């Protein structure tokens, strides 16, 4: 049975698209046929992060309006066999997405894919609402910072009351916390909320902690999902998170300050 996974946060700029790209790619790497859907109508960006921006012909709204079939609009990833992207439309029409239209596309995707990853726009408006409405599971992307944590809590409230599962009285959406841009050194100094603090406030299951990493910008510069950078801390942390999403028990890494080795201290090393 196909699973719809929404990546959401409420607040903007916390790493939703980076996470959608990483998790979707990670699922495909593990052999699951996956599609990542960009719900940010008007501000399409997933295509850039996935490196397929020049291959967008038809988008999500074209499919809803019947201007293109799903097969025409799905962009096949060049690196992975079973990974696809459905780009958001660049239209400025706020009502381009409708519940009926999105529902129909989701049904069709369910028949063809194992995982449907919905990249939610920021905010709690229509796009964000429709991105989470049909979801079975939700990844709440949060930065260890007050406004992001508050917005995440707000989003949890909406997931519990305004989703299809809530409205039909089905089992609630399974919620996962993903803490991104985590800086262990600052946490140690008492300058940043720790994992435990955020877990305590939001009270949902921790999926993973992604350290603040230079690899993320490097990956987005090149249009390569950061999870494919297997050498990087962020890539490895995302990889662990995908394993946990699939039910594997993996110990959390990158929670403590990485001690520099003797030679690294002597020569500076890569920061």
């Amino acid at each position, binding site marked *: 049975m196909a699973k719809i996974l929404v990546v959401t946060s409420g607040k903007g700029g916390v790493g939703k698209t980076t996470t959608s790209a990483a998790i979707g790619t990670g699922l495909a790497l593990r052999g699951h046929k996956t599609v990542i859907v960009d719900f940010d109508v008007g501000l399409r960006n997933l295509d850039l992060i996935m490196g397929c921006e020049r291959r967008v012909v038809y988008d999500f709204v074209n499919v809803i309006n019947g201007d293109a079939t799903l097969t025409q609009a799905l962009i096949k990833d060049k690196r992975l066999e079973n990974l696809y992207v459905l780009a958001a439309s660049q239209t400025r029409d706020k009502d381009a997405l409708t519940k009926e239209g999105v529902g129909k596309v989701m049904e069709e995707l369910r028949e063809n894919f194992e995982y449907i990853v919905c990249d939610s726009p920021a905010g709690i408006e229509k796009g964000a609402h429709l991105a989470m409405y049909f979801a079975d599971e939700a990844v709440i992307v949060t930065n260890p*910072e007050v406004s992001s*944590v*508050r917005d995440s*809590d707000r989003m949890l409230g909406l997931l519990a009351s305004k989703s299809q599962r809530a409205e039909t009285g089905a089992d609630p959406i399974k919620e996962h916390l993903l803490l991104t841009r985590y800086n262990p050194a600052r*946490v140690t100094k*008492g300058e*940043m909320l720790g994992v435990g603090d955020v877990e*305590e*406030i939001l009270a949902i299951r921790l999926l993973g902690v992604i350290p603040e990493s230079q690899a993320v910008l490097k990956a987005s510069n090149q249009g390569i999902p950061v999870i494919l950078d297997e050498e990087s801390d962020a890539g490895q942390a995302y990889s662990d998170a995908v394993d946990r999403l699939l039910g594997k028990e993996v110990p959390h890494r990158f929670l403590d300050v990485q001690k520099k080795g003797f030679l690294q201290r002597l020569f500076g090393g890569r920061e």
Partner: protein
Amino acid sequence: MNIFDFFRERKKQSSAAVAKERLQIIVAHERGQRSQPDYLPALQQELVEVIRKYVNIDNDQVQVILENQGNCSILELNVTLPER
């Protein structure tokens, strides 16, 4: 505890601890509001309009609070009348 201890105490609290404390308070407050029924703001507005027919009051002088105690709910109405 003398005045110097007081300042030392305050300095000890890291900014992360302050953030956590503030978040716990605001999140608890907002969760409380979330469980309130949708009609409360409208009810409050209509009550203000009714009372205004007789006494001149501001919007924030009527408070409507719904409290849940076990299996019964108490609707608390607080109207502050202006000084005569």
